[in-house]
């Protein structure tokens, strides 16, 4: 299982809208794309195929809405958000495959993105505990003293 270059570009742009940067790092700064990729190729191989097809469909959706010269990645953020809002509300412009309805596809990627972004840094999507720093969360565990 691997991504085509357009799929990878679409994924990064999508994650950048799901968790955008503001005064604090967003998904791309925190490496959440790395987490999602690792996840698609690891724990989630069963659903990976459908999720990747959805990335291609996202570009098709963009063409349907904005013309053949555009991809999802080249849209303005406001255009991207409007398009995603339509997908989230199950109002796609193009026919999505029945086994891959637009809204569940988008919600699953929303879930995956936040899993990576808010999980422990060792999972790869929360580099330097960026999201935890934003929230003021720190586990504050220290090394164990003794094994049982």
């Amino acid at each position, binding site marked *: 299982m691997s991504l085509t270059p357009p799929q990878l570009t679409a994924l990064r742009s999508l994650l950048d809208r799901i968790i*955008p940067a*503001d005064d604090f790092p967003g998904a791309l700064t925190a490496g959440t794309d790395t987490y999602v990729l690792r996840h698609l190729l690891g724990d989630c191989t069963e659903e990976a195929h459908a999720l990747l097809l959805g990335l291609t469909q996202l570009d098709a959706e963009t063409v349907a809405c904005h013309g053949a010269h555009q991809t999802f990645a080249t849209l303005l953020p406001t255009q991207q958000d409007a398009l995603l809002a339509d997908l989230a509300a199950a109002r796609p412009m193009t026919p999505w495959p029945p086994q891959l309805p637009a809204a569940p596809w988008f919600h699953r990627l929303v879930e995956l993105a936040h899993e990576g972004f*808010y999980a*422990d840094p*060792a999972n790869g999507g929360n580099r330097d505990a960026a999201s935890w720093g934003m929230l003021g969360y720190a*586990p504050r*565990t*220290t090394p164990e003293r003794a094994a*049982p």
Partner: protein
Amino acid sequence: MTSDHDVIIVGTGLAGGILAGVLAEGGRRVLLLERGRALADSAIPGDHLRNHRLTLYGDNTTPEPARHPRVFIDAAGDPHTVLPHDARYQLNAFTVGGGARVWGMQAWRFHSDDFRMATRYGVPDGSSLADWPIGYADLAPFYERAEHEIGVAGDHAGTTHAPRARDFPLPPVPRSPSAEWLARGADRLGWRTFTPPLAVNTRPYLGRGACIQCAQCIGFACPTDAKNGSHNTLLPRALASGRCTLVTRAHASRIITDNSGQAIGVEYFAPTTTDSATLERRTARARTIIVSSGAIESARLLLLSASPLQPHGLGNHSDHLGRHVQGHSYPIAYGLLPPDVEPSLLGPGVSVATTQFNHGNPGIIGGAMLANDFVKLPLIFWRQSLPPDTPRWGLANKRAMRDLFRRGIDVRSPVQEIPSPDSRVALDPAVRDTFGLPVARLSGTTHPETVRTAEFMRARAEEWLRASGAERVWSWPVEKKFSAGQHQAGTCRMSADPRDGVTDPFGRVHGHDHLFVCDGSLHVTNGGFNPALTIMALAFRTGEHILASP
């Protein structure tokens, strides 16, 4: 068949570890079998996606999860083969020490009326509600012993729902500002609150250090070994006696019975050498056999041990084995702290409770304790605790996380369930585990009276948050579902009359002289509290009973 042991215990959870300690120190030679591995705290990962509070893609204790599926029957009657991290599996921690390695440590005594629910409330249609054959007074000395030998921190004067003869050995956990805020809210309602009992070292105790109030508590191992269970108290005592042999990665497959039907040994699979991947079939013989594997696996082992004399499983003479599965229905009310309440992200977090509504609620059967929650992981907050109208993605979601993470508060309630005989553990006719043995098949759903009680408690939880001054309050309707989970109980209920249950009031399987069950399986009802201290008290009591028996 070897007979180097007096007692074989299957399972090293809270009950199994306590029994090993009591019996080995009492002079018995104990063989202790554990399916999982002996994990140091540092070997239980701090993975926020794979832990016992959030098992998205796995958990942090179970070795080789694919070896041990279960079958879950959904509401439409369709079977689903599920692995340990699936919520439908019902959460067991397969490691030495069991769930107590990663638990939340609430260590409650039951209320005296929790032992006499049928007498107090009558038996609703379709339920198997019954009294316990023992009462609070029978367990009180063993509750006290568990509090002292395991180590429970609590507020002696404030914990009044059950009579107490002796103070807790450890001072109560510290209260966060939000817990104080909840306590003031309860005052306004005329509800009495106190700091709930937790099995945690609030100061150094029994040779181990104190809790450092880290923010990664429930679902994880403790960084200072301050999370108390049998794994760091009675089990080490058992091993230190020189009379306890612990075999890990040992999978019990059958209780062996003789021609008269009496239990004489255990058949199990264990590694050929300590670290070997190859497992071999072994048998061990002992005078006393104790099944202590949790309410699902204990029932399964007794069912797997059917013999020509007991073709439906050991202890299943009156068709109670595997039935009456209970956990707790858990209504939760969520809210937002006002901005002027100082937020706190310190563990364990549970530090204010009320037992105002455990019994005596008009028109309601039973009730429950109410308490605030554990310190929450960011991802769990994102999944469960944002206000329902919060956008799920984009800047609006990120800002809501930033603004509200430290202001989230919830109050939750382990509602005493009304047992149903149709909520049950059976053997699946089709799916087998890695040893070719039928796996547990889980079916049934919540009794309607449980839903009524849970809805009543949900309303009390909301009322508490509102009276405290929460800026917003919300909750979700209680759903009917198969309920067992981390508080699984009821499948080998004790009874005075063999017609009414699986074991006698000491956990001895009816009709058997030396076969015992000891874990939540014995609970006739599961109380309106976290059940662990009751499981521990029963283990001390059964252990002493075995020592005193001829």
